[in-house]
């Protein structure tokens, strides 16, 4: 028998040691905790605030940890159980007010030396830890339409500036048609517009007197990418404002965004905050026309008419020009009017907005200014299409109304307040939306999965139970059927499990889901296949009268190509499943793939090493194998 290479022993030991080390943190279950962070970007939790929190928790009789500062200026208190965690959050959310965000979190209990080498427990999917999963569809048509309208305006302006007369500029999908009275005008506009609109390609003359511009696919894609990224950023800000620990906000495909909020139980609030596209505009109230003019509904030039919500939707005429918009808001906090106790939002503007605000208000002291509230709502509506089928399409409606008209008392700068809000809840939501920024395009929720935390715990238990039972059944079977060689296979199987858990914990993006656990369980059953193949071969060789050591060699050598086949087919399937599946099913593909690789390693290299240790070292070759 050839000597078994020593480096394989070392490799085996090294892999087991590293994976074992990184699998260790999973033995330390996360502790329920409440995380407190400042509502201001970059703000920190002050010592006085944290002392106050600890006092309140003591008064409420809640058992708690000493509290600790964590990354990003947040502060965290641990609790012994979920119940006191939930009670603590309710208590603190009420008492800390708007300056701090109170969120449920899980604090790692991994010992410091393990954290120092970057070891952490596996990420658990939402089906195991509870939470809400949303898939949001960005309304691309709205994005395109908005931009196309802007371009149409640009064309008109350019033609006007050059003194070229045109009949009409029409927008048709991703196409702009500019009509002229005669072909001379069209000719003179051609070069001008071609240079002014690099994002478009000029259609080869379908007819004279008309120029047709088609939006380039690259420009369209850029526009859509920008809208989706902008939305992702805004959603990310909102989710952070909601106080969710470890949220996921990711782009998926061309026009979708996945939002995962672990631990969130109030899906309704999350849904409301995510989908809202509320923003504000500050405009001057136009006083050149009498109120009767407003009642006609036809706006005089340069103005627009909007209802004043708190005054029975009385129409108000506003100037078209905006002094400032919600996009220029740098900070917004809910507060209360010190005089009458009504809710208000304190707003800070950026420098551009503040400059304009200052200039306009200084010239208009004594005149009224209005705050215009703009909100786009998108709903899925049923519609019958041309084939007579019912389909659901997103329909966006925009509400605009005046929430407040106030006389400008003095020159306003970068900071002022907005009143006229219905309730503290509305004020707080408006403040949140202004802080987080508006969405570049309306979104609709097209998929939602909410898993309660108790169901998540049940799923973990079910997964672990079936894994333990499956494992024990297989271990017993292998021991009874293959005796000492069965023990080798069993040790390899346990090592295999260790490697899977270690690798899953090592890969930062890998997430364990319930189907993922099923993948591990299935690998446990299929992993011994390699050993079964090898051992059956060894038995056959022994029956043929081959000497034990040679039988071992033959068994491992002859079974190898079959084992490889078996695993390649399943690996192909795992890759397909990963690319086609979503969320939890991808978790299955991941564990299946890792499980196959590690089981090949342990079942071939691992058992061989053990066989060598027992049957290979002695001076005399073994007379019999226990197989």
């Amino acid at each position, binding site marked *: 028998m050839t000597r078994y290479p020593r480096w394989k022993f070392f490799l085996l030991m090294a892999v087991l040691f590293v994976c074992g080390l990184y699998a260790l943190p999973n033995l330390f279950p996360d502790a329920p905790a409440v995380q407190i962070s400042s509502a201001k970007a970059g703000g920190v939790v002050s010592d006085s605030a944290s002392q106050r929190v600890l006092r309140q928790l003591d008064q409420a009789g809640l058992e708690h940890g000493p509290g600790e500062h964590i990354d990003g200026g947040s502060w965290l208190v641990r609790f012994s159980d979920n119940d006191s965690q939930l009670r603590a959050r309710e208590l603190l959310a009420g008492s800390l007010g708007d300056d701090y965000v109170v969120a449920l979190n899980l604090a790692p209990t991994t010992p410091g030396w393990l954290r120092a080498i970057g070891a952490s427990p596996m990420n658990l999917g939402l089906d195991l830890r509870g939470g809400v999963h949303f898939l949001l569809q960005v309304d691309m048509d709205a994005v395109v339409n908005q931009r196309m309208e802007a371009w149409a305006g640009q064309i008109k302006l350019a033609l006007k500036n050059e003194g070229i007369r045109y009949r009409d500029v029409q927008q048709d999908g991703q196409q702009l048609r500019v009509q002229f009275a005669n072909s001379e005008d069209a000719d003179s506009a051609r070069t001008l517009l071609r240079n002014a609109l690099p994002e478009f390609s000029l259609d080869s003359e379908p007819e004279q007197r008309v120029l047709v511009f088609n939006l380039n696919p690259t420009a369209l894609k850029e526009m859509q990418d920008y809208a989706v990224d902008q939305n992702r950023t805004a959603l990310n800000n909102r989710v952070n404002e909601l106080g969710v620990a470890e949220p996921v906000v990711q782009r998926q495909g061309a026009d979708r965004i996945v939002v995962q909020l672990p631990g969130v139980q109030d899906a309704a609030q999350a849904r409301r905050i995510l989908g809202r596209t509320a923003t504000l505009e500050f405009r001057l109230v136009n006083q050149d026309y009498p109120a009767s003019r407003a009642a006609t509904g036809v706006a005089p030039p340069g103005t627009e008419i909007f209802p004043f919500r708190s005054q029975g939707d009385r129409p108000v005429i506003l100037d078209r020009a905006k002094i400032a918009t919600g996009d220029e808001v740098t900070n917004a906090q809910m507060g209360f009017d010190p005089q009458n106790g009504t809710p208000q939002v304190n707003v800070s503007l950026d420098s551009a907005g503040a400059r304009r605000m200052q200039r306009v208000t200084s010239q208009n002291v004594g005149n009224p200014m209005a705050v215009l509230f703009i909100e786009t709502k998108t709903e899925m509506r*049923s519609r019958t299409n041309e084939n007579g089928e019912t389909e659901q399409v997103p329909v966006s409606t925009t509400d605009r109304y005046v929430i407040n008209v106030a006389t400008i008392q003095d020159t306003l700068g970068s900071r002022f307040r907005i009143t006229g809000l219905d309730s503290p809840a509305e004020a707080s939501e408006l403040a949140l939306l202004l802080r987080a920024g508006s969405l570049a395009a309306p979104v609709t929720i097209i998929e939602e999965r909410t898993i309660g935390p108790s169901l998540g715990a049940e799923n973990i238990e079910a997964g672990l139970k079936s894994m333990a039972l499956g494992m024990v059944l297989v271990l017993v079977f292998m021991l009874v059927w293959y005796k000492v060689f069965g023990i080798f296979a069993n040790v390899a199987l346990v090592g295999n499990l260790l490697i899977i858990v270690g690798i899953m914990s090592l890969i930062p993006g890998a997430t364990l889901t319930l*189907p993922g656990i099923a993948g591990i369980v299935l690998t446990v059953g299929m992993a011994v*296949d390699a050993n079964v193949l090898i051992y059956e071969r060894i038995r056959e060789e022994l029956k043929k009268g081959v000497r034990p050591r040679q039988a071992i060699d033959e068994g491992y050598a002859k079974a190898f190509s079959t084992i490889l086949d078996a695993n390649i087919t399943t690996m192909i*399937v795992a890759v397909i499943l990963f690319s086609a599946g979503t969320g939890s099913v991808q978790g299955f593909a991941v564990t299946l793939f890792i499980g196959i690789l590690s089981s090949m390693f342990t079942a071939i290299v691992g058992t061989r090493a053990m066989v060598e240790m027992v049957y290979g070292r002695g001076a005399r070759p073994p007379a019999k194998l226990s197989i």
Partner: protein
Amino acid sequence: MSNKAPFSINFLGIRRVFAALSIILVIGSIGLLATQGLNLGMDFTGGTSVVAKGENEVIIDDVRSALEGTPFEEATVVRYGSPRDISIRVPTLNDMPADQVGPRLTEVVESKLPGVKVLQVEFVGPQVGDELRDESGLALLMALGLMLVYVWFRFTNKFGVATVVALLHDVIIVLGLFSLTRWTFDLTVLAAVLALIGYSLNDSIVVADRIRENFRDTRETDPEKIINGSLNETLSRTINTSFTTLLVLIALFFFGGEVMRAFSEALLVGIAVGTYSSIYVVTNMLFLMKVDKQDFIIPEKKEVDDMP
């Protein structure tokens, strides 16, 4: 050769009976799939599903009567694991925005049924459902296609055809069973079917490999004897591997909870069928194609003299 096999069962004596059985099952399955299709889960159809738990046993009829007179009369109410758990599934409604169904249904359930709490709400928009359905069908075809390519590289024609037919046989019968029983076919079941594709092919390859090896290595010329010997030699491996896999699936079936039930059902049936097909379908196909020793003689390089 037969002296080394641990078993000496005459598998091929009744191969015609099993050939008939397989043909009937496959045709029956295709017929079922064509006429009544699969009971597709919410992942593929879109709609809303709610899982709720009561403090005590929840009576299904109570839930149904609670939903009467609400927009959710069409809902499917079924038990979900324990007697305290129920699942309510509502198809996409025409007169209600799809993302509103979950919250409103939760309200109805929790207000009309005291003690019942909603644990889980899932809503899949109709367009997402359509896409998942298309993607899943594509994944299934892609998996089968790639297996075909793999087998084509791995085997001579006759063995390749035999293993692929065995693979299709297994997948069609499992899908047929899901059609017959109206078990819900969702994403996790699809994952199970794909896992089955890998498993079934592997099982057939092990058997086919041995048959090929024996055709090359023995003096025996009777294909029937060679194949029967090969089946006996690989029998304990075939049974042992299937058995250990079945053991873990049984554990999943009983303890994996409701989510994993359909997954383990699909694989339990699939592996039983796959084990059978690796023995009978592969060999029947080989006989049908009249495999013999000639197929395994390594061809000598041809002279170019057959060119004019």
